[in-house]
């Protein structure tokens, strides 16, 4: 099941959205999260929906892929819908069956809130689907740069993020290796009583910690040997380039915002 999950995964493709500057994508997502709360009636939600699907279309991520990947999340959306429908007690009563009472406002709220939730998930997934983690890191580093003035360690944070990203696959391989070594020594990870299974994690976790510390130490030495001494005086290899498309995208979002303000009730 984890293999099908697409949240947080990057899908390489050639598309307008892929080529956008990570900064503009981050800004757009941030603004989108705010703007979506302006929507409060059919027209405004329809606008948001059109916008979201337009962006999805531009990204050239196959819909089937999206559907398969987001299926688990759809249950959550449905759950939100039901929660609203059953527990909002405003507006006129629409339906009654024993203790279950469904009100007009509940249906309205339920549909709107779950739609909002759904669009948010789609847009944020779109960010990770079309932007490599390292681009997101770069984008964040540049956007947060002003915070350096208040001594927020922007560079260190970005470096930490990129090193973590770099080592995730390595640690996964390592986990698999140690697990197998311990299974060969008679540990059962996947069967037996819960208490035993929790105990079985220790022979996995301790070697992982030990090796991660060793890695960290060696990595620090290697970084030092290669001249790393903090963010001061460093140049950057990765260059973010703000293109016309980025400005246009922001403009489109601005127009959307204006329309939302005009059309909301």
């Amino acid at each position, binding site marked *: 099941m984890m*293999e099908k999950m697409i949240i947080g995964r990057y899908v390489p493709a050639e598309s307008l959205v892929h080529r956008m500057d990570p900064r503009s994508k981050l800004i757009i997502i941030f603004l989108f999260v705010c703007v979506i709360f302006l929507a409060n009636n059919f027209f405004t939600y329809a606008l948001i929906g059109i916008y979201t699907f337009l962006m999805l279309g531009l990204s050239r991520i196959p819909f089937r892929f999206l559907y398969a990947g987001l299926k688990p999340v759809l249950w959550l959306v449905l759950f939100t819908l039901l929660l609203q429908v059953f527990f909002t007690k405003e507006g006129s009563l629409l339906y009654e069956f024993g203790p279950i009472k469904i009100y007009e406002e509940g249906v309205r709220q339920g549909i709107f809130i779950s739609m909002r939730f759904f669009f948010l998930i789609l847009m944020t997934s779109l960010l990770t689907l079309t932007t490599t983690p390292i681009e997101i890191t770069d984008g964040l580093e540049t956007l947060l740069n002003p915070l350096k003035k208040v001594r927020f360690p922007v560079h260190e944070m970005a470096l930490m993020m990129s090193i973590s990203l770099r080592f995730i696959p390595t640690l996964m391989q*390592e986990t698999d*290796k*140690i697990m*197998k*070594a*311990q*299974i*060969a*020594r*008679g*540990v*059962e990870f996947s069967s037996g009583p819960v208490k035993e299974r929790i105990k079985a994690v*220790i*022979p996995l976790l*301790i*070697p992982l910690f*030990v*090796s991660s510390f060793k890695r960290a130490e060696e990595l620090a030495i290697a970084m030092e040997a290669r001249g790393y001494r903090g963010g001061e005086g460093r140049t950057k290899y990765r260059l973010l380039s703000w293109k016309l498309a980025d400005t246009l995208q922001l403009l489109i979002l601005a127009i959307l915002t204006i329309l939302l303000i005009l059309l909301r009730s």
Partner: protein
Amino acid sequence: MDISLQSIEYRYQANTPFERLAIKDVSIEIPTGTYMALIGHTGSGKSTVLQHLNALLLPTEGTVVIGDHKVKAKQKNKNLRQIRQKVGIVFQFPEHQLFEETVEKDIIFGPMNFGVSEADAKERARLALQQVGLSKEILEKSPFDLSGGQMRRVAIAGVLAMEPDCLVLDEPTAGLDPRGRKEIMDMFYSLHKERNLSTILVTHSMEDAAKYADQIVIMQQGHVVKQGTPIEIFSSVSELVEMGLDVPEVVRFQRSIEEKLGVKLGATYLSIEELSSAVTELLRGAPV
């Protein structure tokens, strides 16, 4: 304990878009007491084969027979633990599996998982430690305070203490210095003889394969491409070279002598001693 792999196949992440065929139609017979070297490039499928010997991976096709146990593809397989008790694996860099507070606790961990009593396990720990050439004094030490070489030996002792009938060694000497390498390899060999173990050595070292093994299996791209005694394998050097594999130094040397002198020695020699005798004889006995 006899082991037999009968046309096994293994696919990683079967039935997903990421499916990848690792080995296909691999059949290997390992009768009791065999010392077998498994050779191939990284990615040739030898570590996939290795993991079948201990039911860490179950074949997607074919059958694995380990002693009295049968592991068949597409069937519910029980009693995997009993197989694991019989087959000990020393993984590459086995020191990475150490986790207990003391050396003793770490060594008895395996045996106790398989139901050996604490007293017996401790006795085994003492014996195993002696076998790997460490003194009893370190039993109470933390394994993490030891040198790299000592940690390696403790980890090996942890596998030996399980008293397996079959030992699977995955590059057990990687990263050690020449002395450590020789000591460990000699130790495994004498253990192999003493206890009549079946030993499977996965290695890149043709020297070790020529020196210790009585059967060699060569794998390439998930298939077994050659199987035989060291003499058989190393008699056809050009084939090995074509596969991009090394040849033992002695064999290589014999080839260059034969080319230079324009004679054939008539046999393939695997030790310096044998080869130098044969060449000396040739030099003295046959004037031009």
